[in-house]
């Protein structure tokens, strides 16, 4: 999982610095020139420090989780598998087949290719995929296709786990 700082938090930090630095500078100048009561430059310097520190603590951005390109792509694939299973359960086998062919098939091949170091996971994935393809060829009962798509989802998630790729499952 990649961790990155988000843009809005970074902007808050920058704005805090823009405000804090002049406050400290002006405070130091006023103190050096004794142009005002001592309380004023002291307050400016302390206020500037407070804003600067606050900008990087109170306003510190939470670490924003970003998914890698692969996680985004495989996340879409898993979502499509989930949709295909739902559509199949409703008896729309052609629609389930189209979703599988358009949004799943190629990415499953890519995933299996990536699993070259985990042949067991790759094997289970490809076996589950072949069962679904055979179902679609034979136009099986909706329950059977839906069940086999469920097995494929399980095998897919196991393969993604093996690659340390974090993807949301079916809702």
């Amino acid at each position, binding site marked *: 999982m990649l961790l990155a700082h988000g843009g809005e938090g970074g902007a808050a930090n920058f704005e805090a610095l823009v405000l804090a630095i002049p406050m400290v500078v002006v405070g130091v100048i006023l103190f050096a020139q004794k142009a005002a009561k001592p309380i004023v430059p002291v307050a400016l310097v302390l206020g500037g420090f407070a804003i600067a520190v606050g900008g990087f603590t109170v306003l510190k951005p939470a670490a924003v989780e970003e998914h890698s*390109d*692969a996680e985004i792509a495989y996340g879409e694939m898993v979502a499509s598998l989930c949709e295909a299973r739902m559509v199949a359960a409703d008896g729309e086998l052609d629609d389930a087949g189209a979703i599988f062919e358009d949004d799943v*098939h*190629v990415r499953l091949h*890519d995933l299996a290719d990536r699993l070259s170091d985990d042949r067991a996971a*790759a094997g289970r994935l490809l076996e589950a995929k072949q069962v679904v393809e055979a179902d679609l060829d034979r136009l099986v009962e909706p329950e059977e296709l839906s069940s086999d798509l469920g097995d494929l989802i399980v095998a897919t998630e196991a393969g993604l786990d093996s690659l340390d790729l974090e993807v949301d499952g079916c809702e």
Partner: protein
Amino acid sequence: MIRRGLAALVVTLGMVAAACGGNGGGNGDVGGEGSSSPDGELIVQTANYDLAVGEQSRFLAGILTPDQLFVSHGSVDIEFFYLGTREGEGTAEEGPTATAEFLPIEGPPNQPGPVAAPGSQGRGVYSADVTFDRAGFWAAQVTANLEEAPMSGRAIFEVYEEHRYPAVGQRAPRTDNLTADSEDAPPEAVDSRARDGEPLPDPELHQMTIAESIRRGEPALVVFATPVYCVSRFCGPITDMIGELQSEYGDRANFIHVEVWRNFQNTVVNKGAADWIYRNDDLLEPWVYLIDANGVIAARWDNVATRAEIEPLLEKLPKNG
């Protein structure tokens, strides 16, 4: 056109070379380095396994748009450029040009195009007969006149001095591949679909060895494929297609399916497959070979084989029955 293509190629050669590993051309892996093409160009992936110098070869390219739609149907234009013997170095030199026709792997037959469409509306590759005059690295600059706007992309691939795999005109290896009667192998080693107690599919493709067919002086159409464990994105129902051809042309040739894996998970390759398709730690499948009655390889198809390409050759064979 060629000049413009050459200039574009020279400018972006370094970028493409960095994005494309090995001789596979523009890799279309999900989330991989090659999943996005430079400047939204087409993703072009060469699908050949064994291109060699000096003879007409069937060049194959799979093409996707940057948003992973298949470019399908119709034809595309290809300009080839010779890049030299070292990958990522040298100056591009103009080579042959070709118009490549769509070869559907699955879905409807070739239609007017090209179009960018999801896989269910046509998945396949573009094919052109090309002769490469030098060994080394080549680039294929592909232009597809899509309805929305023309798009182009390129792939880099290698042409070898000699074929690495059994080739047309060579004597076919006398292989004792597994058959339905092989008692020393589990059913899934004969066909990967015959696992978990499933019956052996297409039993008519598992009756004879290649060696026996050659000994009898009979032609054979042999498919080396693993229906379950194929990882190529161009995988299609090639074994099913060979089975269909067997039902129509079984009186003209022996039809044989050689399963690739004896045990996929333990990476054990069937010897009958290794004799043909395993070279220098490279196992590439699927392949289809036509062996003539004299035991000589008459034709071969790497990666993608279609009924339209094979059937005319079968029709020329005499009926034996």
